[in-house]
Structures are given as structure tokens and as C-alpha cells.
């Protein structure tokens, strides 16, 4: 249970876990926007401190966060390397053909590395402390105003939650079909990339056919239980905004104000 895939929920009890999903969604988006306002070493460190505080509060260990982020490490490394080699400006330290390492390139890549890491970690904090369905509930709330322009918000969120609910079921089925094809002599680990992709066809076709069958069964079952997409429905799951959510909101405001004070050079002495 201690292996975290990127974006999966870690079921422990913490202040952050108990927050309203709406607050956590707001917090995550807000934070990501703030990251783009960090323009100096001190502002960046200040935001990092804020993130670190949230990570400690979540009671999910740093090691688990690292396991969650690691699969994306390659993407980050490649982006950073490209940034170093292909951007220009400032003093040139090394040059070969179209590649060069320059002062600006190094600074830019550092900024990109920082943003990448911090944004991915912040969203991992959200997904590690909030079950996907609660995130869907939160989104549902934020999307309610869209009803005014006739966006079918409730149908969309029901769709989203059914899709999430069926992910493990369909993964399970994919596993079974793969095994069935293997027992008929299919070797999925043989041949070049093209052949391997071709080997997936006999898995995907039954998977799709079965998914349509499932969808039809599910639609019938939903209709039998009185589901009518055009009728209003009541909601069993309610979102509760607590005092802790107000405090979090307050902390976000403090984080933002101090960030802009540092930016504006109020702490000029410190930023020396």
C-alpha cells in the first residue's frame, strides 16, 4: 500500500484529508498561478516553504511523494536538458553545432525545473489527500454556474464519476483478456515496436466490444432504477465547508500577500 502511482489517493487521516475538496481544488489552482509570479530566489523559496508545509500537514511521507513523481522525472529531465542546450542569451560557456550552454539557458532551465517540480508536487498533494470522486464532486460545484448557459453539468459529472468507477473493472478485464490471448500462444514481449503494437489489437477489440455491452447493461439498470437524465435529482453526497477551510483560505491569502511583498522588495534587507 506504500507505493503511490502519480495521482493516486493515500488513505491516511490528516487535516488536509479532511478539508473540503472545493478548498483543496481552489488551493491547488491558486498555488499553480502563484508559482508563475515567483521571480526571484526568495519568492521561489517562500512558495516552496508553503508547499512543504502542506506536504507535512498531509501526513503522506516525502518518500511516497517521490515515488509518485518519479515516473514523470524523465519528462522533466529531458525538458530541462533541451532548455539548457537550445536556449541562447548571456555568456556562452560551451558551443557545438547548434547546441550551446549559455548563462540565460542555465537560469531558464533552473526556473523550468523549479516550476515543473513544484506544480507536479502540488497536484500530487491534491490527489494524494482527496479521493478522485470527491474531486469530481468539487468540480461539480464549481461548474454549477455553467448551467445558466445550458451546459449539462449534472450529466457530465455523473459521466465522470461512472468513468472513474469503471476504471478498475475495465483494467481487470484487460488483464483477463491478455491472459486468455497468452494461453492461446500470443507472446506480447516479442518483436519490434510495430509488431508489439499489432499484438494489442486482439486485446483491444474484445475489450471494446465488452465495454459497449457493459454500457448497455448499465444503461438498462440505471433506467430500471428510475434514472432520467432530464429530471432533477437530489444528492446523497454533500460537501461541508468547515472552519478549517476558512483557516486554509486565510493562509492562502497570507501566502499570496507575503509573496507579493517579497516581490515588491518590501523585505529588501532580507532579499540582499
Amino acid at each position: 500500500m506504500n507505493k503511490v502511482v502519480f495521482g493516486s489517493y493515500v488513505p491516511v487521516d490528516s487535516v488536509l484529508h479532511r478539508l473540503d475538496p472545493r478548498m483543496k481544488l481552489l488551493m491547488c489552482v491558486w498555488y499553480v498561478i502563484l508559482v508563475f509570479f515567483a521571480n526571484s530566489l526568495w519568492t521561489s523559496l517562500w512558495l516552496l516553504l508553503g508547499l512543504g508545509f502542506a506536504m507535512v500537514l498531509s501526513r503522506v511521507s516525502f518518500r511516497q511523494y517521490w515515488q509518485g513523481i518519479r515516473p514523470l522525472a524523465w519528462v522533466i529531465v529531458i525538458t530541462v536538458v533541451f532548455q539548457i542546450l537550445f536556449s541562447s542569451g548571456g555568456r556562452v560557456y560551451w558551443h557545438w553545432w547548434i547546441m550551446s550552454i549559455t548563462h540565460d539557458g542555465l537560469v531558464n532551465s533552473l526556473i523550468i525545473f523549479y516550476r515543473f517540480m513544484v506544480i507536479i508536487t502540488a497536484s500530487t498533494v491534491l490527489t494524494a489527500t482527496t479521493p478522485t470522486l470527491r474531486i469530481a464532486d468539487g468540480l461539480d460545484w464549481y461548474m454549477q454556474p455553467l448551467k445558466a448557459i445550458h451546459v449539462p453539468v449534472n450529466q457530465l459529472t455523473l459521466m465522470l464519476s461512472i468513468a472513474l468507477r469503471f476504471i478498475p473493472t475495465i483494467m481487470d478485464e484487460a488483464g483477463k483478456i491478455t491472459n486468455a490471448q497468452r494461453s492461446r500462444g500470443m507472446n506480447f514481449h516479442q518483436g519490434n515496436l510495430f509488431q508489439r503494437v499489432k499484438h494489442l489489437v486482439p486485446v483491444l477489440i474484445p475489450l471494446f466490444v465488452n465495454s459497449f455491452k457493459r454500457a448497455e447493461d448499465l444503461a438498462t439498470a440505471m433506467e430500471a432504477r428510475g434514472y432520467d437524465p432530464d429530471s432533477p435529482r437530489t444528492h446523497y453526497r454533500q460537501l461541508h465547508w468547515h472552519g478549517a477551510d476558512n483557516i486554509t483560505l486565510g493562509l492562502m491569502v497570507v501566502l499570496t500577500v507575503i509573496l507579493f511583498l517579497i516581490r515588491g522588495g518590501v523585505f529588501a534587507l532580507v532579499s540582499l
Partner: protein
Amino acid sequence: MNAVTLTDLQYQYPDTKKPVLDGINLNFPAGKWTALIGRNGSGKSTMARLIDGLLIARRGQITVNGIPVTEDNLTKIHQHVGIVFQNPDNQFVGATVADDVAFGLENRQVPREEMPSRIQRALEAVDMAGLSESEPTMLSGGQKQRVAIAGILALRPQVIILDEATSMLDPAGRELVLALLERLRDQQQFTIISITHDPAEMAMADRVVVLDQGKIVCQGTTAEVLRDVALLEKIGVGIPAGQQLRQELADRGIAVPDRYFTVEEMVKWLSQQL
């Protein structure tokens, strides 16, 4: 009192040559458990869908508690009839057990304040109250089917239809679901219609209706219908254990009384002979 009546019912799927149900006249008495048996394609599941208004027949009439099943009455019909389908996974809508039971209540716009108690009671009735926050992937097939039954009980229907609801379960899961059905039958609040191939399940019902090629070939009390082993063999449905044993003994030339035997009755008769 009949909970469901079918009068001169005919149904034909689009793009087929023969009607799947033809000239059906049938009553389901209220508070009784009726087993609907017959081979695959005999029209059993179609009948279940027609009763709940999921399909609408062109010819004939169906009434549920006196309400005719028509397009205009669908909401009311869905309130009176609950169906448990065959595949436990394909009818689990909610993200957790409680959410799934709540789904039907939400559709019916039951006020939020009423929901927890109704969900709790329905889950207690199927012995699943302890798992109300579990996700479907953590449940066995039998547990999912019991949640499906709870979802229906929470809506307080008069008619419960089980469309081969135990056929995908392991023996332990099946036994639990059947025990639950017996409990519900004993409360006599529900009319149960169970479509099944399982001889043990037919033997538990009060009445049995045999369908073959879209027509009713036999109906009556369980003892009357299941007595006719030759008929059961002819239409290719399973034979309950007690009756099978009686038949085997009779085939070996042993004089067994020509009546219906449940397993318990057979055991009793045999021990008397020894």
C-alpha cells in the same frame, strides 16, 4: 390478488422473424415467489423487461398493481418494480456501496435528510451495513448482488424481479442471496419473480412457470410443476436434486411414490425405507 397480470401479450424484437413472446396470459400473485424457467432464448428476460416497461409491447396488456405499463406510466412502474440483473458489475453505479444504494433514491428525489436512514435499513436487510463505505472492487460478486438488492429495497417496490441474479456467483455467494430471498418472501411484502436455471432456486419458489419458445407450457405450484421430470428434461432445464434422486430410484425399478419430493422429503422417505 395479482401483483402483475399479462394479458394476450406478444413481443417481437425489431429485425426478427418470430415473436419472442406470443399469446402470453399470466398472473403473478401478490406476496408470492414465482420462478420463471425455460431454456436460453425462451423469452424469460424479455418478459422481465416488459413488466418493468424497459421494453414496450405492441400487442397485449401488462398491469402492475392495476397500473397499465405504458410510456406515460413509466416513472410509476419503475417505482413499483425493481430488477436485479445478471452481471453484478454492470449494475453497480455508485462509487461506494452507500452511493450505489443512494442512486435510486436520488433519482426519485428523496430528500437528503431521509437518505441515510433508508440506506442504513436497506443495507441491514441484506447484511451489508458494515461495508457501506467500500468500493465495488473490494466486494465479491455475491456482495455486489446483495448491494443491488439493497438498492431496490431502499426504493420500497412491490415487485422484485431477479433476472438470473445468482448465475454468476460462487456457491457461497449464491446461497447467501437465496437465503436473503427466502427472508424477503417470509415477510410477504414483496412479489418475487426469479428467472433462473438453478434447480435449487426453482425448488424454493412458491410457484413455477415454464416458458418454451415464447409460450407458457406449464404453470402451477412448485410441487405440481417440478413433479413432471419428463417435461423438465424435454425443455432442457435443471432438475432439482430430490426429484432427480426419485427418478433415478424409479428407473432402477424401486417403487417410489409418484409425487413431488424436495431433498428433505426424499431423505425422510429413504430413512423410513431403511
